């Protein structure tokens, strides 16, 4: 019982709310059953539209009220009733209706079918909106309309732009996706916690691990056998500094057990909070490139050796000549001296046995004179000294030749720059000594610089030989004056600067931009292949993170300036 009462009360209550609500609405509203009989209406409808009270209307159909409801309204009403009853739902239409005060107003009728508890259409609720009321604020409306039109057009334009932008973004996105998928590089995405969130097809192929195998794993546990210490340092650095870190020659072993190398670039990316939210590692297996480079450098080295071989041979042949001559002289001198000794011995013995007579002494003196002991006394020490000098010169050049023997490792090693330059000067001596004086001005306090020793030497060698050629080319035939090659080293802050100057003709302006190009040469065919400076550039800039620049003035000479970072992990520009 209680339940029922409780249930009933809200129903009654809701009916009250409803009828109050209906009467409170300023818009005329009414409800008619499916037969067109008014079941309910509000005061606004009864009084404002029909000019009567609700009691007179409820229970009547439109046909029952010909005096109250004009025929035109009845027709519109019945026609729209029919439509709505056929297709139950919501219906709106506009109609001009003469109101109780005799004024015709435009109304918007918003109507809805009402279902009974069986789901059948029970009738139609209609609410009327007086459009004429709105028209009263027509002025305002017009203004607003104009504004609206303007803003709607603007909106349309914006939408258009947005759509276009969206299309572009979509297109770009597609392109990027396409690009990424077709990139021949390894692409690994890492989360802030260094978990693998992306592992592209190339990575899968290079490391022989599919993305499903490694996805979500921490990078150090992904199973690739690589130089993790180096990689980890790079990742930490990139995370800490928020900068791109390049790692060259990261060793790894592929699944075939082959030792190979990666060149990687670690790029941090920031989230919306400006914090680093992850890293992208892109890169490639550069083993083949290293091999090719090594071969290329080797071939240029062979070219340099070929160029120098004749000169080196000359440098060795010359001292060998006088070492040989002096030794032969010493051989002769020794036998002469020995003979002299014997003569003295003979005279001592003769004196002892008292057979020494003046004739005997005369003979011995004559022979001694012939032997020219005085000359030997003077020349033998000189011959020995010069022989040693010759041997020293040969030793020196043979030692310096080791710069060709050094295979040049994959890692940089601390190098005494001055000493290496000295060696190269020795090796190239025959190339410059006939045309130039060579002056050095080394900063003896230079720290050891991390270098690929052999390649560094090759660069210096190329530059010295070029300097000698520049001077020889600039020399007019009759001038006997030698030019000057000046080589200096010094430290400025965190880098070492090496300057190699010549007093040649300088580099003409129109070719300056090309001098580091591979195979660019101004030399006669057969005299140079145009690889020297290209190699110099690649070695200094790419391999050492340094710079190589020229200062040149026509008819004055050229200076090559090499700057090398003292910190192996930094480039000069950092």
């Amino acid at each position: 019982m209680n339940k029922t009462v409780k249930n009933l009360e809200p129903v009654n209550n809701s009916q009250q709310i409803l009828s109050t609500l209906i009467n409170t609405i300023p818009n005329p509203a009414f409800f008619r059953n499916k037969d067109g009989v008014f079941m309910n209406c509000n005061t606004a409808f009864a009084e404002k539209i029909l000019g009567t009270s609700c009691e007179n209307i409820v229970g009547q159909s439109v046909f029952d009220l010909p005096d109250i409801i004009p025929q035109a309204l009845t027709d519109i009403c019945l026609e729209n009733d029919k439509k709505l009853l056929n297709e139950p739902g919501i219906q709106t239409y506009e109609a001009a209706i003469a109101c109780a005060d005799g004024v015709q107003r435009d109304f918007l009728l918003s109507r809805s079918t009402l279902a009974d508890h069986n789901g059948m259409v029970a009738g139609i609720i209609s609410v009327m909106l007086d459009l004429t009321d709105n028209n009263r604020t027509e002025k305002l409306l017009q203004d607003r309309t104009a504004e609206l039109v303007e803003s709607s057009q603007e909106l349309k334009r914006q939408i258009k732009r947005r759509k276009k932008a969206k299309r572009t973004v979509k297109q770009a996105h597609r392109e990027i996706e396409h690009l990424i998928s077709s990139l021949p590089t390894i692409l690994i995405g890492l989360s802030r916690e260094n978990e693998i969130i992306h592992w592209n097809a190339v990575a899968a192929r290079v490391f022989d691990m599919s993305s499903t195998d490694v996805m979500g794993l921490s990078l150090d546990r992904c199973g690739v056998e690589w130089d993790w210490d180096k990689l980890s340092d790079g990742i930490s650095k990139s995370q800490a500094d928020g900068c791109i870190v390049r790692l060259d020659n990261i060793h790894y072993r592929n699944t075939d057990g082959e030792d190979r190398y990666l060149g990687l670039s670690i790029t941090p990316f920031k989230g919306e909070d400006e914090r680093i939210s992850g890293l992208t590692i892109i890169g490639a297996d550069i083993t083949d490139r290293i091999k090719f480079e090594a071969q290329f450098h080797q071939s240029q080295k062979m070219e340099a050796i070929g160029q120098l071989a004749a000169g080196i041979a000359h440098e060795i042949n010359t001292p060998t000549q006088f070492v040989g001559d002096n030794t032969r002289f010493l051989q002769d001198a020794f036998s002469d001296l020995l003979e002299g000794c014997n003569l003295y011995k003979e005279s001592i013995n003769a004196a002892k046995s008292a057979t020494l007579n003046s004739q005997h002494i005369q003979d011995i003196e004559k022979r001694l004179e012939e032997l020219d002991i005085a000359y030997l006394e003077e020349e033998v020490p000189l011959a020995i000294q010069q022989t040693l000098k010759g041997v020293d010169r040969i030793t020196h050049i043979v030692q310096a030749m080791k710069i060709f023997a050094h295979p040049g490792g994959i890692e940089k090693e601390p190098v005494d720059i001055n000493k290496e330059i000295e060696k190269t000067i020795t090796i190239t001596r025959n190339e410059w000594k006939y045309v130039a004086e060579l002056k050095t001005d080394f900063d003896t306090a230079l720290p050891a610089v991390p270098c690929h020793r052999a390649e560094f030497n090759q660069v210096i060698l190329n530059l010295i030989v070029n300097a000698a050629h520049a001077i020889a080319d600039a020399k007019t035939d009759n001038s006997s004056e030698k030019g000057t090659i000046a080589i200096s080293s010094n430290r400025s802050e965190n880098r070492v600067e090496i300057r190699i100057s010549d007093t040649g003709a300088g580099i003409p302006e129109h070719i300056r931009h090309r001098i580091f190009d591979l195979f660019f040469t101004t030399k006669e065919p057969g005299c140079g292949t145009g690889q020297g400076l290209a190699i110099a550039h690649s070695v200094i800039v790419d391999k050492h993170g340094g710079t190589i620049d020229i200062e040149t003035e026509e008819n004055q000479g050229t200076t090559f300036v090499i700057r090398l970072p003292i910190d192996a992990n930094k480039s000069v520009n950092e």
Partner: protein
Amino acid sequence: MNDQTKRRILFVDDEPMVLKGLQRSLRKMRTEWEMRFSSSSQEALDILAAEPFDVIVSDLRMPQMDGTQLLAEVKRKHPQVVRIILSGQVEQETTFKSVQLAHQSLSKPCDADILKHTLNKLFGLRNLLEDESIKRIVSQTETLPSLPAIYTEVINELQASDPSVQKIGDIISTDLAMTAKILQVVNSAFFGLVRKISNPKEAIMLLGTETIKALVLSVKIFSKFNQKKFTWFNFDELFNHSMSVSMFAQTISKEERLDQYLINNSLMAGMFHDLGKLILVTNFQEPYQQILDAARQNKRYLWELENDMFGTSHAEIGAYLMGLWGLDYPVVEAIAFHHCPEKSLSNSTGLLTAVHFGDAYDRLKCDENGADELKQLDRGYLDNLGVCHRIDDWQLVCKDLAERKV
């Protein structure tokens, strides 16, 4: 010995220690040689202008005026001075330039004994020629003229897209001028050969087409005589005779079981025995034309008439040039004395014997009347050697060879 009879040598090298070393190691020669040492080309030229020298031994690579320039100057101003290069240079480019300028080249390091030997050999040659003007002409001779047809053939082959070393060797070895030149070049120290090469084909193989090409086309080590200018001289006859004697000399050397070294050189000795004629023909056109006419009319030996006119003959002249170009003494001796073998100091059967006989036999063959057979043969010389009984055998093998050849 007074200074007049001493041989005078000027050494030039920009490295003072090399000069000092030479001075010391050659000191033993000071009784026979007068040696001067200069450390620059300019100074060397000044010394040469002031004093006479027999030989200049120069380095190649020197600052300012280099060895090539120096030797060119020496050749121009003092042609009688024998020019030798002693260089540590191994660069072919420089080598090529100097090939035409130096009579001989030695490479550093050069043992003092080899240097002594080379110089002594040259001084031995100086006795061959008395006349300074002829010496000068021979010393200046860079190339000898080749037969135009052969010359053209070589040039064509060298310029072909794929020249054959084999073919070039075949062509060159038929021309005595080219053969002589190629042997001088290959035996110069620059090509770094330890042993002496006496076979032109082998020389060509060793040098290779590229080097030959450079030498022939750029350095121009060969030349051809102008046929229009020399209608009065039968080059073909000279060349054919040279080839024949060359083969006869080789056959006899083998027949006599000479030392292998001599057998190897016998072809050259025979081939070059009349080479001096090329020098006389090209340098003394008018007088030589007269000599040839006189020889024909008076039925006299050419070398006798040459001796009357020049005080020397084509034999000594050819020998001198071949000596300057570095051919070994047995070859030089055979060339020098092929007419008068008794003048030679050697008293054993050798290249001279073979060339002397080969020459006489080829002349006989040409004569065809056979009345005075082998009239050029010096029987006294052969008798001294005790080989007169071999003459018949030699004639047989030569006849056999000539017939096979035909």
